[in-house]
């Protein structure tokens, strides 16, 4: 089976035309890049060997090659789909190509993330390859996570998969995505991800990313949540990157739909990051929480955004941005936006940017810890975001990733 596929051969000509028109359209936020310099990647030699040689790196981003406690696996090396399989009857894990062949995604494709949103969605549509489609069938509660992994190895190339997560009514699915780059390679990752959470369904989507200082990252994510549906997106970036900009757009369309969006960002060296998220509260009783924890070191610069737009009554939204500066040459900006278009809302925001608190350091030293130990405990604590409803196995994975990142600070 030849897994190299091009999304565009299966999509209508309309997408291509739109994409071509948008190739020079800059994104709203983040550093503007010249996307023409990035090429489709060269084929990889011995992909499996490459994967197995990167076992440590993979573990760090939550990928278990033995697939223990995983309900399905998808991995992709540059443009090659390495694996797309499910071990659960209620769960489909397909490559995008296969999903088109099965006719299961035509109603969903580019419905949440427009192909001409900006130059990155355009380049994804024109040069991008493959991607996963994870579908939890109606009423199926998939216990273990589906693991997905994107591995970039070919220099100066673009990796732009188109991914979809569809949770049918009453279903539950956990997806953990690890993205990583071979240390030596320069490139652009510009994946598109569309998430559909149907009535009473629950999706958790955990991303642990390990880029390198030469990578540019521009994921484009859109999600729609129906009545009583619940979506949790937890984004963790622990390594330097050349530039990163992401801002998922989430539409809570059904009554009492909920979303929790959190980001833990450790930004080192000369990383330039712009991380946000916008939630539209479009039905009564919907609620959103956007949490970010940013740590900067060296000369890194991070902007955190968050936007909650309340369009319906009885809605709630909370944004929390905490920034911890561990070097005087780094920069943090927080730009939260609350917008109410209805009176019966509760929108709140809290932000704090600064260094470690002296009274907390003193308190811990008064219990016998050295200053250094106290600081390390506080940094680790700062990065912990409580995410209600995340399965134990994912919480553990995240804790592990955070601890390993904190020990390098």
């Amino acid at each position, binding site marked *: 089976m030849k897994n190299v596929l091009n999304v565009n051969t299966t999509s209508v000509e309309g997408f291509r035309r739109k994409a071509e028109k948008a190739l020079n359209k800059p994104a709203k936020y983040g550093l503007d890049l010249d996307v023409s310099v990035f090429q489709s990647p060269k084929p990889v030699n011995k992909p499996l060997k490459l994967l197995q040689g990167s076992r440590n790196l993979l573990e760090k981003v939550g990928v278990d090659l033995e697939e223990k406690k995983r309900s399905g696996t998808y991995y992709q090396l540059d443009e090659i789909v390495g694996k797309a399989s499910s071990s659960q009857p209620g769960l489909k894990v397909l490559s995008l190509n296969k999903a088109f062949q099965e006719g299961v995604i035509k109603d969903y494709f580019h419905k949440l993330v427009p192909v001409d949103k900006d130059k990155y969605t355009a380049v994804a549509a024109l040069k991008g390859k493959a991607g996963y489609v994870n579908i939890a069938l109606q009423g199926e509660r998939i216990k273990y996570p589906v693991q997905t992994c994107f591995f970039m190895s070919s220099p100066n190339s673009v990796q732009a998969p188109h991914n979809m997560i569809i949770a049918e009514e009453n279903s539950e699915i956990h997806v953990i995505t690890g993205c990583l780059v071979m240390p030596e390679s320069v490139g652009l990752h510009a994946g598109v991800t569309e998430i559909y959470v149907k009535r009473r369904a629950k999706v958790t989507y955990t991303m642990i990313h390990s880029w390198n200082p030469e990578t540019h990252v521009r994921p484009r994510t859109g999600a729609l949540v129906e009545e009583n549906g619940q979506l949790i997106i937890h984004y963790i970036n622990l390594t330097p990157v050349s530039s990163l900009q992401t801002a998922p757009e989430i539409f809570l369309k059904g009554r009492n739909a909920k979303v929790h969006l959190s980001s833990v960002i450790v930004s080192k060296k000369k990383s330039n990051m712009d991380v946000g998220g916008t939630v539209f509260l479009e039905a009564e009783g919907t609620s959103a929480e956007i949490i970010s924890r940013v740590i900067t070191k060296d000369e890194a610069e991070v902007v955190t955004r968050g936007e909650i737009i309340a369009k319906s009554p009885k809605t709630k939204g909370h944004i929390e941005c905490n920034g911890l500066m561990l070097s005087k040459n780094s920069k943090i900006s927080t730009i939260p936006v609350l917008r109410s278009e209805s009176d019966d809302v509760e929108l709140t925001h809290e932000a704090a940017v600064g260094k470690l608190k002296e*009274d907390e350091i003193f*308190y811990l*030293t*008064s*219990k*016998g*810890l*050295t200053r250094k130990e106290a600081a390390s405990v506080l940094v680790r604590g700062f990065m912990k975001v409580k995410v209600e409803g995340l399965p134990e196995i994912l919480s553990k994975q995240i804790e592990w990733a955070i601890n390993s990142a904190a020990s390098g600070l």
Partner: protein
Amino acid sequence: MALLRVMDLSVEVDGKKVLKNVNLSIGVGERILLLGPNGSGKSSLIQTIIGNPKYKVVRGKIFFNNEDITALSPEKRVSKGISAAFQIPPKIKGVTFQELIKLVISKSGRGFEKLEEVINEMGVNHLLKRDLNVGFSGGEMKKAELFLLFVKKPKLALIDEPDSGVDVENISLIGKMLRKLLNLDGKRRKNSAIVVTHTGYIADYIEANRAYVMLKGTVKCYGNPEIILKNIRKKGFEECVKCEYYKC
């Protein structure tokens, strides 16, 4: 022999004087009460003895076991055998009570026997997985602080208002914790402690040897704890220190 001796201590916080010429000493096996109204300097004295860097000693010395500890870091003082239970410990998000217990035990260099048993006995089980002091009630905060003291087993315990914001059931529980901590019912020598109290409710439990009364940043008098508490209850602090019998 004096375990701790505070001599002519004057202390500033952000350039503002909070303690003036304080003298106080406590012998091995002794427990003293520190009384006084809000803002009289009781907590400042505790913070200075444990080594809070915000509290700058501008005059005087602190000796522990005849060693001058005035310039030591808090962790050094802890390693010598002093520990404090704070009146209002900071709330620290992301660090659970359990994690701190483990860290404190690991730093003390020895294990801690029957940890689970003591956890149950002290009623702090339900706090273990919670972030340190975040959303703790007054009583829970006190219990957590006292439990950490317990784990530490210090030669000198500094206990700042263990009874404030605590309800009637928990006062007696905290009283019992204190008795155990200070080894008041055991056969071996009792442990030393300075106990700050506003309310005096906890006084019954700790069998204090002396009570000191602080007013406006200095120790005004000391003497028999029962008599002093009675006077304060009757006349208030200002009147109490006018009494001739217990002048410092």
